[in-house]
């Protein structure tokens, strides 16, 4: 058993300590909002926050989250930055297939929490790790600016 804090809830989870958080969330806790895309930290679909920092859950074992706060897409709307990001995403209709968008929103929310008025270069460096095959990048950029009030 490992003790985790997921979206403010303490949980005892029966997994080996080297199990990545991605599969712990999806397969053990049935929290499927966090997506599997590549398994190698190349696409960002699995992005979650640990103590507010964006991490790729597919390569982050549960052992690295012990005693820390895990936040996922299911609860990001409860944070000020996450709420703004979701509202902007809805307003600009960012998602297409939607599969990568959990990760996109988690990366964008972490960016805005750390940097209230990001520049284009800031957006590039914070978001370049998140692939979208539907090509929603122009709207992601516009939505981040909208959420930040810099549009």
């Amino acid at each position, binding site marked *: 058993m490992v003790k985790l804090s997921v979206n403010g809830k303490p949980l005892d989870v029966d997994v080996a300590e080297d199990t990545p958080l991605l599969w712990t969330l999806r397969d053990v806790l049935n929290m499927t909002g966090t997506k599997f895309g590549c398994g190698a930290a190349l696409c960002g679909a699995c992005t979650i926050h640990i103590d507010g920092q964006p991490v790729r859950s597919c390569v982050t074992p549960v052992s690295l989250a012990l005693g820390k706060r895990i936040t996922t897409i*299911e609860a990001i709307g409860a944070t000020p930055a996450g709420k703004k990001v979701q509202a902007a*995403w809805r307003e600009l209709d*960012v998602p297409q297939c*939607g599969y990568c968008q959990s990760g996109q929103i988690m990366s964008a929310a972490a960016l805005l929490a750390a940097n209230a008025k990001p520049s284009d270069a800031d957006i*590039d460096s914070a*978001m370049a790790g998140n692939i979208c095959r539907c090509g*929603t990048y122009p709207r992601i*950029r516009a939505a981040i600016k909208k959420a930040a009030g810099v549009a």
Partner: protein
Amino acid sequence: MKRRDFLKFSATSAIGGGLLLGFGLPVRAEIRDTLTTNAPFAPNAFLRIDRAGKVTFVMPMIEMGQGTYTSLPMLIAEELEVDVAKVAVEHAPADDKVYVNPLVGIQMTGGSTAVRAMYGPLRSAGATARVMLVSAAAQRWKVDASACRAEQGAVVHASSGRKLGYGALVDAAAKLPVPEKVALKAPGEFKLVGTPHRRLDTAGKINGRAKFGIDTRLPGMKFAALAQSPSFGGKLVAVDEAKAKAVRGVSQVVRLDDAVAIVASNTWAAKQGLAAAAPQWDAGPNAKVSTADIVEQLARASEKPGAVARQDGDAAKAIAGAARKVDAVYEQPFLAHATMEPMNCTVHLTKEGCDIWVGTQIPGITQAVVMKVTGLQREQVRIHNHLLGGGFGRRLEFDGTVRAVQIAQQVRGPVQVIWSREEDIQHDMYRPYYYDRISAGLNTQGRPVGWSHRIAGSSIVARYSPAWMKGGVDPDAVESSENHPYDVGAIHVDYVRQEPPGIQTTWWRGVGVTRGTFVVESFIDELAANARQDPLAYRLALLEKNPRARAVLRLAAERSGWGKPLPAGQGRGIALCTGFGSFIAQVVHVSVGKDGGVNPTHVWCAVDCGIQVNPDTIRAQMESGIIFGLSAALHGEITLKDGRVEQSNFGDYRVLRINEAPRIDVALVKSLEAPGGIGEPGTSCVMPALTSAIFAATDKRIRKLPVGDQAKVAT
């Protein structure tokens, strides 16, 4: 089952069972699983209304990002007179008849057909229901139906001010005969169609609640990790079962002829088990296959005449007698789809039946193939379709479902089979490698008088649907070549089928239009350069009978600042795409660095797709298609060495990232022509616009995709 057999399955009507799938997470009302509710009023297969007035639309096409779960409901709602934002949308069950795509003949989402196919049927479905509800109200009020009108989910009798919501009328309406023919609104009467509307599927896609096939969670479900023979056609020789089972959580090793699956309590345990199992393979007959061999075979095949797709006049004679002759060979690589949601399928197989949870573009065929594999009857095979985490043609195939069923045949209880990204890239069914030879003869003014084009490549149609072949010609493989819009004098187009050993090929975004548009637009650009004419002016002169094509070219050019001088190392390229019933032109602006790095900074796109249903979705699909096409044109390439695919993940199968994406400007042309497709042509158009822009910037003509580092030698 041989894939070519799929059309032989009788498509008798059967509705998948009404299994409730609300397990696990709360499901928002917007997108619902198949047949989750019953309602008294269901005058056709596309809509139901219950006594509370709740309207449910059943979608004949599946949502994979293209916005179909918004534009198709808009078509129904326009005639039904309901608020489209309040309807529930359901995935259709598998049924090749009731939910047939009339442009294809089976239940299929693909080929940019959804609006083209359903523009009439879905408006009729809405209008039929409205007429019945109005009749029911008129009968109750004992007034003439013509004195009543429908608005906002209610019937109103204007002179008396009486009003009844649809919910109060459903029982009476259900007893009325379904009218055979109903009048539809003229486009000028549309209130909803043609206005930008928010997508109906966004809410669940921003809070993690949207359910893709991979999100299926069932009580007692196990997870399987899969390894398939690294070389196509190879066989499984050995696995270390003891080591695999020593991994905590692993319960079973499933051996198949050409694959192995490790079944466990979670995916991580299954992956660990697979690594421990260290499968050994007999590489089989294709162990030596390389891309170079395949290209060599194509080059040789293209030296011989093919099946004739088009012959107008004597092209050979016209070219031989022309003032100048231009020849070129174009090559386009194998491409993977790399959908963000990797291939996956969840199966629960029992003696009583088989439930399949998957996202598929072909539910009916999937049902039929599962019947074949399991020996079950149609009503025993239930396909629970899901939102697709990207399609792009990959989910027009059923190989992933067959693989999952083969595994489930050895597993008790439900099992979810997820392909790793490496499996997904290395066992895709690829966009074919195409090898095109093309020649034209020009007169002294530089205008073409003869045109000869030979296409060599794998035939997707011959495998997928042999009945569509026309005398040895694959109509997809010659698309946008035998029917391109330019006036080029005498014309000869033929096709040589040449299959790559062991490699399965299939549809990829833009299908034949993507192949053909790259070649024809690139070659037109070469002819313009040869004639020392402006690429835009040259095209316009060859399109005198095609005002829609001319209009989009002019519009894209105008918005791009076409003709204004650019600094050294920058260039603009223009291209036209006339596929899928739409007219699209794009201008790409590139900057080519001293290191040969190609940076497309801007794309201007003009679209005339006839009647627009949801203009914002058209814009989104252009943005999407452009970025998808740029990924492929700049970087996309699957290569083989020693029988194995060399690429494995997003590190070596590169796709565009946000910092590499251009600024995109989309201009829509108002039109009352029949609606055209918009999901794919953005991809088709951008590739030649990009390479022509590189030519404008560097004088280097890219005839072989991807661009890669080919611009390097030019600087």
